[in-house]
């Protein structure tokens, strides 16, 4: 496909060729790099890309770069890199292969460039075919009123056997953890003692030991007894202050006795 003689390659370009190239220069911004430009130039050969003459293409490209330079158009570096490479390729294609030289042959390089051009062209065609397809939202449509899936949150509670046992242990051992406090069931309050004594005092015509006034249930348990005794004593003092009883004690630590105070009617 690159078996062209140097003479053919050096042929004076046709008027049409020149016009195309000039149009290209004006339009330089429209190209997406050297490969795009090469593809466009290649199309002017009006042959299948598989039969394209890479030598001819290289000549066209180099002409183009020359003209751009003459017109003082700034060419991006990659256009110049491509130009240099195509000049190298051209020389490789025209000169007989040097058996001493390593590396790919001119034919290999040309074939690959042809492949690249063909592939890029194919991708462009596919892009066009893709866009020509029926498209969602233009030719076919999704549901107009999508019904969203509603999220329903369901709460479940859970506990482990360990939670349960720890919970129970916590309750059962709560008392163990408490520092000593006066439990209320062991207390006979002053108010209770007053009420209790006021009820009984009417019957106390003779001297009676204060300990006889201990309420039921507060005589045996020493804790309870202590509490009731103290409260009863305080209540007795209160009643004496009110002038309702007389108190006496024969000696220190002797039992405290009390008696109803007779009301004088004068």
């Amino acid at each position, binding site marked *: 496909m690159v078996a062209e003689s140097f003479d053919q390659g050096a042929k004076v370009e046709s008027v049409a060729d020149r016009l195309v190239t000039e149009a290209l220069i004006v339009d330089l911004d429209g190209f997406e790099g050297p490969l795009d430009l090469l593809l466009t130039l290649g199309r002017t050969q009006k042959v299948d890309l598989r039969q394209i003459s890479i030598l001819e293409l290289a000549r066209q490209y180099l002409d183009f770069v020359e003209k751009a330079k003459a017109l003082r158009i700034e060419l991006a570096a990659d256009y110049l890199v491509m130009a240099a490479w195509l000049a190298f390729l051209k020389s490789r294609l025209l000169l007989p292969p040097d058996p001493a030289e390593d590396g790919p042959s001119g034919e290999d390089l040309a074939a690959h460039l042809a492949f690249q051009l063909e592939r890029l062209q194919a991708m462009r065609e596919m892009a066009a075919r893709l866009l020509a397809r029926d498209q969602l939202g233009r030719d076919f449509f999704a549901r107009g009123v999508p019904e969203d899936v*509603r999220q329903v949150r369901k709460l479940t509670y*859970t506990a482990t056997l360990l939670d349960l046992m*720890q919970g129970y242990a916590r309750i059962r051992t709560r008392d163990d953890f408490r*520092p000593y406090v006066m439990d209320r069931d062991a207390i006979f309050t002053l108010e209770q003692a007053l009420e209790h004594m006021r009820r009984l005092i009417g019957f106390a015509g003779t001297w009676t030991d204060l300990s006889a006034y201990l309420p039921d249930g507060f005589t045996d348990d020493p804790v309870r007894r202590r509490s009731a005794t103290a409260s009863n004593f305080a209540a007795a003092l209160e009643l004496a202050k009110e002038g309702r009883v007389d108190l006496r004690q024969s000696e220190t630590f002797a039992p405290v006795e009390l008696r109803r105070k007779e009301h004088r009617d004068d």
Partner: protein
Amino acid sequence: MTEEHEKAEQSLFAAPPLAEQERMLEAILFATAEPVSIRDMAARMPHGSDPAEALVQLRKRYEGRGVQIRRVGDTYAMRTAPDLGFLMHRETIERRKLSRAAIETLAIIAYHQPVTRAEIEEIRGVSVSRGTVDQLLEMEWIRFGRRKMTPGRPVTFVVTDAFLDHFGLESPRDLPGLAELRAAGLLENRPPPGEMPQFGEGDTDAEETAVDGQNELFGD
């Protein structure tokens, strides 16, 4: 595109066959965001179409299907069949730990069943909120037992088979005893106040906060 134009042009001369009109109507009802009136259908369909007639056919076709054509005032819309609404829900299950109040109540019921509410309160030292008991009943971990033969004949609570199932117990007797709890180190370890589990959200009783206060008071 050109095909469609041709079709549109043809339609100037002859209305499409009814089956075709039905297809058109189907597509319109499917893709349109709002319900469509017969008038709108006619305006969108090729000249000479009879949307009302096509609609009758289409509605028949969708009878008993998962999708229905419903009349909304003077307009029509496609909707999923109401009996399939459950497919449009997605249930997410969120697991939460039982509150401390609930766990303690549950533990007391498990260890002391059958047990009355008053007994639970006595053991816990605080009143038991109604929410806590209701929650446990709802979870089907406890149920009502026989009434106690004491004054007032109070109801009792017992644990259910679902409870045993959840905790992997064959019977309530399989619950470890206090000695075993102690052996397992569950009784000895006194959690520092900071690490004490928080009181249940359900229990908003005044007593509950009082206990909270007491624990703080008694903590080291």
